């Protein structure tokens, strides 16, 4: 019996267009119109500034625990820009910038992180799933949504996000495997931010890349500089075209970094060096993109300031409005409302018990 070679047709590419110093590979530069470029920049900046403001609010005790996204704006915005409103967005929990781009209001996010049920409300017709906290579980929903889109004969596509840690879950395997078998139009975006709480990538997988895992499922995989919005945009565009043309799923590994803590309840200095963080800060996605836009003559100081002011004003309005809303929202009895389309009698009884308890104990509904 011979020992022979089996050639696997695909290879894995690494894509970088705009490097950490702002140097551009002009041959690979995607054709993006000026308006879109500025929109990309503004969306990234809004993601960044809102994240910073939320951290302040959390430290002041004005919102609860949340997972900061700082440093991952390019990975999110470069990819989410490829979706139409008729496509599906299936997030994990660290995609705030992408969620905002899809239309989620800043108020909704603030209410959510203050524990208000109202913050979970997704507007009708919005094809966004709620954040998924059980790590990896959303990957399967994306596969099913993709299957449904194909079954119904539409050209809708699905984009789902997850971290490097999630790739160790069975759901990652099952989701990608099923999607490839069904040739479902799904784009799997792995935000490889090097850490899963305190577990570094090296302890998560022995593979050289996450992208190469795609080969095992028989789908294209690509690794991109996740802090390079042009590279992410290009890879996601290619994947979206394939998906819309009926050519199945793609795995995109965005190499990026979790600059902040896992969540505000975490202290990363216990398990990683400041040096490492500093090295990654040098690769900041916004700084290099600003340089690119300046070189193109799209962003001078006054335009930059203008966008900054707009973004900060938007955030301030949202914070004011959310804090005002919180004074009247948060009816405790609402917790019974969204379990069944029609509330069964036993649940009605339990709701009534809580209502009576509240009436007897506080005389009024406690908000917040």
């Amino acid at each position, binding site marked *: 019996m011979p020992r022979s070679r089996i050639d696997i047709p695909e290879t894995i590419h690494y894509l970088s267009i705009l490097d950490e110093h702002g140097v551009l590979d002009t041959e690979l530069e995607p054709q993006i119109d000026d308006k879109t470029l500025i929109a990309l920049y503004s969306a990234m900046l809004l993601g960044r500034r809102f994240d910073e403001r939320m951290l302040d609010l959390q430290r002041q005790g004005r919102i609860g625990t949340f997972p900061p996204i700082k440093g991952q704006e390019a990975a999110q915005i470069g990819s989410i820009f490829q979706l139409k409103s008729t496509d*599906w967005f*299936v997030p994990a929990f660290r995609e705030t910038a992408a969620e905002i781009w899809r239309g989620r209001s800043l108020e909704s996010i603030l209410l959510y992180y203050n524990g208000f*049920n*109202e*913050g*979970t*409300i*997704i*507007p*009708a017709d*919005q094809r966004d*799933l*709620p*954040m*998924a906290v*059980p790590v990896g*579980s959303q*990957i*399967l*929903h*994306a*596969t*099913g*949504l*993709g*299957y*449904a*889109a194909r*079954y*119904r004969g539409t050209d809708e596509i699905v984009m789902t996000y997850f971290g490097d840690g999630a790739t160790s879950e*069975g*759901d990652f*395997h*099952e*989701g990608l*495997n*099923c999607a490839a*078998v069904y040739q479902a139009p799904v784009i799997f975006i792995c935000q490889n931010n090097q850490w899963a709480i305190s577990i570094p990538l090296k302890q998560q997988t022995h593979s050289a890349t996450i992208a190469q895992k795609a080969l095992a499922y028989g789908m294209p995989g690509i690794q991109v500089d996740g802090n390079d919005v042009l590279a992410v945009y290009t890879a996601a565009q290619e994947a979206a075209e394939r998906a819309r043309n009926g050519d199945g799923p793609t795995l995109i590994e965005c190499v990026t970094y979790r600059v902040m803590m896992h969540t505000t309840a975490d202290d990363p200095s216990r398990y990683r060096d400041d040096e490492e963080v500093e090295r990654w800060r040098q690769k900041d996605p916004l700084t290099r993109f600003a340089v690119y836009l300046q070189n193109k003559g799209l962003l001078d100081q006054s335009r930059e300031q203008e966008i900054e002011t707009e973004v900060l004003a938007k955030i301030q309005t949202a914070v004011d409005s959310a804090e005002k809303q919180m004074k009247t929202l948060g009816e405790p009895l609402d917790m019974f*409302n*969204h*379990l*069944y*389309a029609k509330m*069964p*009698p*036993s*649940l009605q009884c339990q709701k009534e018990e809580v209502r009576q308890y509240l009436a007897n104990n506080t005389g009024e509904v406690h908000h917040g």
Partner: protein
Amino acid sequence: MSGAQSARKTSYREAVKEAIREALQKDERVFLMGEDVGHYGGCYAVSKGLLAEFGPERIRDTPLSEGGFVGAGIGAALGGLRPIVEVMTVNFSLLALDQILNNAATLLHMSGGQFNVPLVIRMATGAGKQLAAQHAHSLEGWYAHIPGIRVLSPATLEDARGMLWTALQDPDPVLIFENNTLYNMEGNLSETAGPVDIDTARIRRSGSDITLITYSASLYKCLDAATALAGEGIEVEVIDLRSLRPLDDATYLESISRTNRALIVDEGWRSGGISAEISARIMEQGFYDLDTPVERICTAEVPIPYARHMEEAALPRIDTIIDTVKRMVRHG
């Protein structure tokens, strides 16, 4: 059933298959997915022949991946389809528990009321076929613990035929548990059999001395016991719960208000089981109707044994039902 209606002989398995076929015919959005449901016809042969009739897009074989296809079923339901997901047995559904409990049952809540998950999951449950400790448990009562889903347990041909369509119309996730010992059960089914309600329990035999509360395959043990007891002058009322979540309290409480005695027969484990829940509800809502304490007959709290005599010993048995009823009626 009235004798005037024309009836034909069929089996529980055929009744489930007809229900699936009808759903596939009536609604383009419906498809069946699961392990070996296609050419193989399902591990209990329920879907045999459906692949040829409906094609591979609608009778969808899946990879060996319970979490995967239950999760994909959730996604497909969110995407406008009406999936019927078949899981081989309740034991393997545990690999999909995260999808069922943390996802299907909570997405409506997590989306602020935006996303109902109109998903139906069918699976085989129960012991009695010597399938031993990893294929034969009765965990439907355990699933009934979970708010956000419905749990159905069809015991009769009518329910096997009729619950699926109603479940598919429900906007929320519905789990249907088919006891594996029932698939070969034969009987007459009306030609006009169709959708049935999935909210209420049914009195399957009327009696004035005691109420037996049961569901699924144990129904037949209770009915056999009732027949034997009638010969000794004890009139047993037998209630088939049909739905384990939500429970139809009103039907069994009304019965107990007439019989003043209640015995629960449940193939699940005793501690923390659905029998404990029903017993508690009777204490809460029907205590003053009782002449004697509520009792329970459940499966022994062991992994289901392989050997036939041991398996029989572990499960609720007709003789124990008869003895318990006699004791309760004489002393109550």
